[in-house]
């Protein structure tokens, strides 16, 4: 980790910005209560009515080279992401802040102030919109295997009189037919689970329509990082007034009852990452 950086002395630091909020005692208290992620304490950098939540980070580790190396390693990326999130999360528990994207780094505090000045009106507007709101995540999974596990054995499900391993009647299914039937059931379960999950996802949107102020559809999670059984078919984020979080939870209760192939997962409350930037009115193709 210790390298010779000719241009930068060992003490050189830069300013890593986690979030922006309104300047004031609440944000100051949030900064005081938080330790930086092994990179020194947090502080607020204020300009006018706004302040940024900042920590000084070593220039070598967070300069272009350092960051590139960190972001290229999934383990380091994960650590950085968790540290960033921990600060945003703790700050948001105290006061409304706009989370900045991971690894937003400025050369010094003066540059942070310049950024606050430049974007002040937009920040203030967004902060006003998010005041008192939290983000809740709702993921719906289709899990045909869970549905299969919940079903009784195919043979046992049929007429109890013919249940058993050796069907005596001539019309009874042989191994080939049994196989086909099994495949067919599998396929039906698969379809049922996906159809039901889609219906549950749509039903949830209806259930919370009067509670949530906004909704953003994230890309469904797949693969190893997602780490959940079944397939994620809906991954929504909702903007919900903090005082209505319980109501929101209650509204979800029973959404997948009687559907063993469907699972609903609620995460949060989150700081409103997904709503920090208002959606562009109608500018297709515009970079975010």
């Amino acid at each position, binding site marked *: 980790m210790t390298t010779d950086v000719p241009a930068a002395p060992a003490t050189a630091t830069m300013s890593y910005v986690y979030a922006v909020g*309104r300047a004031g005692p609440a944000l100051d208290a949030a900064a005081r209560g938080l330790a930086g992620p092994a990179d020194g304490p947090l502080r607020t950098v204020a300009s006018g009515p706004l302040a940024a939540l900042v920590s000084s980070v070593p220039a070598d580790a967070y300069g*272009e080279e350092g960051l590139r190396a960190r972001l*290229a390693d999934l383990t380091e990326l994960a650590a950085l992401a968790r540290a960033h999130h921990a600060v945003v*999360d703790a700050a948001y528990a105290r006061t409304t802040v706009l989370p900045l994207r991971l690894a937003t780094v400025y050369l010094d505090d003066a540059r942070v102030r310049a950024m606050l000045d430049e974007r002040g009106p937009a920040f203030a507007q967004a902060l006003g919109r998010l005041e008192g709101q939290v983000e809740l*995540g709702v993921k719906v999974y289709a899990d045909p295997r869970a549905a299969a596990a919940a079903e009784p054995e195919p043979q046992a499900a049929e007429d109890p009189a013919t249940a058993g391993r050796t069907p005596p009647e001539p019309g009874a299914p042989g191994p080939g037919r049994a196989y086909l039937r099994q495949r*067919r059931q599998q396929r039906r379960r698969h379809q049922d689970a996906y159809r039901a999950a889609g219906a549950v996802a749509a039903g949830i949107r209806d259930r919370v329509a009067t509670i949530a102020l906004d909704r953003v559809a994230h890309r469904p999670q797949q693969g190893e990082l997602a*780490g959940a059984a079944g397939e994620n078919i809906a991954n929504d984020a909702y903007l919900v007034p903090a*005082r*209505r979080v319980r109501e929101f939870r209650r509204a979800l209760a029973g959404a997948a009852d009687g559907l063993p192939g469907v699972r609903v997962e609620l995460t949060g409350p989150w700081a409103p*990452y997904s709503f920090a930037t208002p959606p562009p009115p109608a500018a297709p193709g515009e970079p975010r």
Partner: protein
Amino acid sequence: MSDSLAGRMGPGTPASPYGGQGSSANLADILERVLDRGVVIAGDIQINLLDIELLTIKLRLLVASVDKAKEMGIDWWEHDPSLSSRARPPQQVAGPPETTPAGQQLALENARLRAELAELRAAARPQDLPHPDPAREEER
């Protein structure tokens, strides 16, 4: 601004509404938020934005294909310079398709085709075969 912590939690809720997410939250949930969401400003360290853009694409590829690819024994991401520091340094890249060497592309394509084939087979088999006793097959 009067909406302090107490105000935002509603009656009877525990001290912090965020207690559950700080450390225990699922990495995929966190990554999609800190990489894809939040306010995006170009800081002074310009390269990171570009890197993250690229990285996000890579992560998407990774999470989208890792299960299927692993089943097929493909692990190109472990040799991908933008996902592993052990791999060779990155050369000039224009986008995800170009960053994947031809052999890996072939392997991926192969995996995709195999998966598709398996799916088609699974879908076609029960229906295409003749059913001497449709009533029985139709039963639940």
